């Protein structure tokens, strides 16, 4: 009997100790949050901006917006599959469609940490009743490339994992740069994404990180065709279809909408021809065939893997 009581007491203490392994952090919204030392079951409140960086850092993300219970995406684009491939271990459950959190589903997943974006401050109070909520800045305009992943690695103690991946990525950057016909350093680039209009891609994505690490410099489109700053909220900003062909970057990087089924060069060209007729006849980069086509679903997330997909596309283009 005494043995039993002792065992139970030890088990209870162990369990309590496990729960007690928390630490206090200040999140990007300035809130003080008690988070688990080693989060085991994370819910991400945005697939592309939060879930993918966490997955790449090796965290067990158990739920995100926009997925069915069996882990299948209910939206046009499946970023997890596009970026990481068809990995059965990445069957992540859903917590309702975007903008409509299913609190019951969320609670049933028993998370020990919820990671949201700064703009989800209003929801964080409700979510805090289920698990601690950490808010990561994603759209303040201060982020670029895969800096969101780097910040998450720092916040959750995975800096070593991030550094190893980045070191390997930087080796690949050198390799790809050497394979290009010309040294890209100092040349300008303009990255666009074609929705039902043409939009210039801003800073937050693995694609932009890779392009800049290769040595390309951003073409100053902001002062040419829009009153919106290049460095600001959001993934992309619309450009005038009339003025698009007048822009003069050394390199044009084009991707189709991630909701599009066709990411082929022919498909993207046809779409762009319809929106901005004459672009390929007048734009210098087009005339000199300095165009790289990317699959936006693979490269638009702020992850090292997206940057690697971008490097692969550049390597292919350089051949």
């Amino acid at each position, binding site marked *: 009997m005494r043995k039993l009581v002792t065992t139970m007491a030890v088990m209870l203490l162990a369990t309590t100790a496990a729960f007690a392994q928390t630490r206090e952090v200040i999140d990007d919204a300035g809130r003080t949050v008690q988070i688990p030392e080693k989060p085991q079951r994370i819910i991400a409140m945005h697939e592309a901006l939060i879930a993918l960086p966490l997955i790449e850092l090796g965290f067990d993300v158990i739920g995100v917006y926009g997925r069915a219970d069996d882990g299948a995406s209910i939206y046009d684009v499946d970023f997890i599959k596009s970026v990481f491939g068809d990995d059965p271990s990445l069957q992540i459950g859903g917590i309702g469609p975007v903008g409509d959190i299913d609190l019951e589903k969320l609670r049933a997943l028993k998370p020990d940490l919820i990671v949201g974006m700064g703009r989800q401050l209003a929801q964080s109070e409700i979510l805090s009743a289920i698990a601690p909520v950490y808010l990561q800045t994603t759209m303040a305009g201060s982020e670029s490339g895969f800096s969101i992943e780097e910040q998450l690695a720092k916040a959750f103690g995975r800096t070593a994992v991030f550094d190893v991946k980045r070191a390997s990525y930087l080796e690949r950057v050198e390799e790809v740069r050497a394979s290009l016909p010309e040294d890209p350093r100092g040349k300008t680039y303009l990255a666009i994404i074609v929705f039902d209009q043409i939009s210039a891609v801003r800073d937050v994505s693995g694609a932009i990180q890779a392009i800049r690490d290769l040595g390309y410099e951003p073409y100053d489109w902001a002062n040419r065709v829009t009153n919106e700053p290049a460095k600001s909220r959001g993934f992309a900003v619309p450009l005038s279809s009339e003025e698009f062909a007048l822009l003069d970057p050394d390199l044009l990087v084009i991707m189709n909408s991630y*909701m599009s089924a066709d990411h082929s060069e022919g498909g993207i060209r046809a779409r762009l021809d319809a929106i*901005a007729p004459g672009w390929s006849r007048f734009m210098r980069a087009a005339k000199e065939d300095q165009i790289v086509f990317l699959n936006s679903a693979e490269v638009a997330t702020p992850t090292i893997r997206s940057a690697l997909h971008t490097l692969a596309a550049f390597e292919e283009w350089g051949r």
Partner: protein
Amino acid sequence: MTRLRYPAIAGTLFIVVAALLANLSFGPSKIDLISVVTALVAFDADDYDHFVVAYQRLPRALIAVFLGAMMACGGAVLQGLTRNPLASPGILGINSGAMLFVIVGAFIFNLPPEWQGVAAIAGGFFGFISCLFVTRMTGMSKDPRGLALILSGAVLSMLYSSVANAIMLASPSRRSDFLSWASGNINHVYVERLIDFWWLGVLGLGVLMMFARPLTLVTLGREKAASAGVDVSRVTWISVCVVVVSVSSAVAICGPIGFVGLVTPHIVRPLVGASFTHALPANALLGAAICLLADLTARTVFAPHVLHTGIMMDLFGGLTFAIIVKRYYLSPGVREASR
């Protein structure tokens, strides 16, 4: 009034030409009128301004002209036949019915683009006939103010739009292709649809012009028209069918856009009178001018963002609708007369 007719039509024609030239000249980049005219008469493939005029601005302008003419003439005929100042393709279920059938055809039956236009026309008929049916069900079809017709149309329009939106929401993989169209968007990308359907509208306007005199007599009074030898029901039904076909073909091109069909006849009527011989050309011209100006506003106010023309129209349409309701339904004279 007669003295005013031809100057009014000439004035409207002038406004259309001015709106067209403004549409071709103003935009994110300003292109001077000489370049605009040169682009139209002596296109130079090495001049980028010519490309912008010929391949971006002109297609948009032509779509706006077509849409405005179809909607305004449709509104004028419907207001005349129903004798209701609020009648318009948008209110009587034609626009939303056409939209619903296009969405159902594309999303559920996977129809190719050319058949989506046929679906739009079928949907336009469905929307209008269901509106008449519901009005009859209410037992108020003889109401002289036609209030039941308007209410039925408004309710059904909302219903059809909701169903269409629900179908789009339930099919995320196709949604992005139609989201812009469904909110009423004049876009040069849609010029291929204009090439497919322009002849339907032009043919429709031709038929309406041929029917202008009997149509005028019918709108002045059915007995009067019958005593003048007009086959009232034949004229009514052919005119309605032509309106549904031409309006639906406009919806097939750039989605459901309201307001023009409602308000243009109200501006035209005091200028040229009730005779459709003059009202139809005047409506076609003024409707075109309104759409051209709305498109110009949509392209330039928030440039480089391009607003959907349907959104611009709805902004003005809501206000205009309220003014017309107040004028025709809430004025003391009308209330007294309807007791």
